[in-house]
């Protein structure tokens, strides 16, 4: 892409300068070539703090083009602060179209969720990653964890799962659940709920992961095998709820608990706001005999 007319904002197209984008694209190519491998890159200062999506925003800036349509979600929702601000940032600095509909987007930047609507071939999903190294809390030395990845020594991550079962009776990791990519590389899927892990497996979309503070980029190419780790006698399971979404009645989506008053009233609604809205538009409603949500409780997978 050639340097563009800075336009009224005074910034280059999509904020980053062209050399930086080239550097990030080189890292991305390498990341796609070795699924799950963490490629170091020269993370730039961005006009938002580390932890708010600096990695994701740099990856998006490097891959976005004039004809792209961008969707940004945070915890599944299009209208949370982080999502609104990043969407507006690219609308201003790149002048591209934005959308809230999963099916209309060519690039989806996300924090903590994968949309419920299945992604299609040709779409790119960009994850914001706080900690790219799945074994970091067990092994603090970067040199050592890199060596473990290189030599495929993944006994340590089992220790974490073992400890989970020992303390809680089941694998209590519910988000950032470690996965094996392409039967070779151990990968942190970013803090998505484990509910979303099955969506990583053989997904037709290109999945890119950017960690700004840790200066790492990794990727899962389309249709790549992604397996969640488990034990033979404690197989991987996703979260389940014993009710449906209080608005659209969906039984197959990740539900958020919403406190409705200060007397213990609460309801469960889809975390993916676009999915819920599409279902409502199609006339789907929660059944009237939905159990009292105040009495219902989230049932964790056991």
């Amino acid at each position, binding site marked *: 892409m050639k340097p563009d007319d800075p336009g009224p904002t005074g910034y280059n197209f999509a904020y980053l300068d062209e050399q930086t984008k080239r550097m990030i694209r080189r890292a991305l190519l390498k990341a796609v070539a070795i699924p799950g491998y963490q490629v170091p890159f020269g993370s730039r200062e961005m006009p938002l703090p580390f932890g708010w999506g600096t990695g994701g925003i740099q990856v998006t800036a490097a891959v976005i083009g004039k004809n792209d349509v961008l969707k940004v979600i945070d915890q599944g929702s299009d209208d949370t602060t982080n999502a609104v601000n990043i969407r507006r940032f690219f609308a201003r600095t790149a002048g591209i179209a934005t959308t809230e509909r999963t099916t209309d987007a060519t690039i989806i930047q996300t924090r903590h969720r994968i949309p419920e609507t299945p992604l299609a071939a040709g779409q790119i999903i960009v994850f914001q990653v706080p900690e790219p190294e799945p074994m970091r*809390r*067990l092994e603090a030395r970067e040199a050592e964890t890199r*060596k473990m990845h290189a*030599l495929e*020594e993944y*006994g*340590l991550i*089992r*220790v*974490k799962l*073992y*400890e989970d*079962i*020992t*303390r809680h009776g089941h694998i209590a990791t519910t988000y950032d659940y470690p996965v094996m990519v392409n039967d070779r590389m151990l990968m942190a899927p970013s803090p998505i709920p484990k509910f979303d892990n099955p969506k990583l497996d053989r997904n037709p979309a290109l999945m890119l992961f950017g960690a700004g503070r840790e200066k790492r980029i990794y990727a899962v190419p389309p249709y790549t095998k992604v397996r969640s780790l488990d*034990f*033979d*006698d*404690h197989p991987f399971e996703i979260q389940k709820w014993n009710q449906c979404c209080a608005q659209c009645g969906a039984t197959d989506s990740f539900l958020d608990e919403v406190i409705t008053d200060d007397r213990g009233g609460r309801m469960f609604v889809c975390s993916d706001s676009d999915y819920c809205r599409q279902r409502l538009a199609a006339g789907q409603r929660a059944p009237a005999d939905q159990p009292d949500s105040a009495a219902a409780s989230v049932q964790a997978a056991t």
Partner: protein
Amino acid sequence: MNTETDTPLLRVSGLTKRFGAHSACCDVGFEIFPGEVLCIVGESGSGKTTLLKCISAQLQPDHGSVEFDTRDQGLADIYRLSEPMRRMLARTDWGFVFQNPRDGLRAGVSAGANVAERLMAVGARHYANIRHEASGWMQKVELDARRIDDLPDTFSGGMQQRLQIARNLITRPRLVFMDEPTAGLDVSVQARLLDLLRGLAADLGLAAVIVTHDLAVARLLAQRMMVMRGGSVVESGLTDQVLDDPQHPYTQLLVSSVIQA
């Protein structure tokens, strides 16, 4: 002692390690056969620990070779093996018992996870089986298996040392390196630990290299011993022979300076 085989488990020859002008190990050579326990004794700074690091692939020597009897290639120089193979050896055929249990244990996870880590590293994937094996090994080192879910910090020093031993033995290594395994423990705990080690070495046919400055440890555990001073081996031979009839002046000094209780 198993003397049926002619192939040593570990053969060290001409091993030299310098730190600048200072020579920490100078032309050291010895062999260990399966089931044999060798003690390396000497004062602080005599190069014992450097030697142990060199022969356990933690520190590359400047000269000399360290050969280990690998399962598939026979005697092979460990520094010529590929790094994956060397690390594989280190977590299957070898064990490391550190002086300070904190160096050898993971403080953040339970005793059971500590003991079972190597098992999971070599591919165990069934939680109940892993746990069963871990508790079996805790019993073998005379720990209460009911404490399998406690953190290592809640164990006493001697018990932590046992935990470290169980953690190493779970993959049934053939050679265990120990650096001052009983230092820092009180005398009665030391005695029990030595007794346990002697029993395990005999039961499992374990070969061991033990670095110590405590001659009693050598007397109790080792068939053979080496006395080091200033980086060189000044005397070596059968333990009883060296301790009862020391030839070298330094060994005589060492033996005579043991306080008799």
